[in-house]
């Protein structure tokens, strides 16, 4: 299941919460199960990999401004 499909499922779940508050418990359990889906975890990994790369590039960019300053 693609991350986009999972996001759509979560949107439907939120709609159910709004329209049928008595189903919140059921929806929350379903939501937690979907949160553990491998595709969702893959999404987190892709995002965090990109963040680490961006952060490292920023450190390299700022390094010349920090010459002589203790790290």
């Amino acid at each position: 299941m693609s991350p986009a499909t999972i996001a759509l499922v979560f949107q439907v779940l939120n709609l159910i919460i709004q329209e049928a508050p008595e189903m919140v418990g059921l929806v929350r359990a379903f939501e937690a199960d979907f949160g553990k889906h491998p595709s969702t975890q893959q999404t987190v990994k892709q995002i965090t990999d990109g963040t680490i790369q961006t952060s490292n590039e920023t450190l390299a960019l700022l390094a010349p401004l920090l010459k002589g300053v203790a790290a």
Partner: protein
Amino acid sequence: MLALGLLAAVLLSTGCQKTASISTPAPPVAVDVRISQYVNILAVANQNAATVVVNLKDAGVISGDNATRIATYQTAIAKATAGMSQILAQPTAWVDKAIQIQNLALSLVPPSQFEKFGAADSVQFQSLVTAINAMESTIKIIVQMAQAPVASTTPAGK
């Protein structure tokens, strides 16, 4: 005929009231996915702001000392965003991750009175001030989200 018209008017009115309230749903993703997205946004914003700081220093809009103060803050943000990403990737319990992410986020404090490091009428410098304010807001959002006791992709008990 009049009764029919009145009935139609009442039905239309009721229908309009039913659809009048529009609410914005919460982001439909697990909390760690949301936090990883916000951390990524912070990292990208920080990278863009870093380019601006380098350019403003080279152009003489801000002094070398003040550029170093801002760069020190931005370096802390870059290290924190990398650290948060590594924490998010760990197979540990969500509650432990959340505390570590909060601690990292709360350690980020901008230099005192950074908004006075450049001229008030400099559009470029004011853009940098806006960018730093936006990063501070994003950091606060990350802290708030890490405090929310909701479902994550980390299996319970791990």
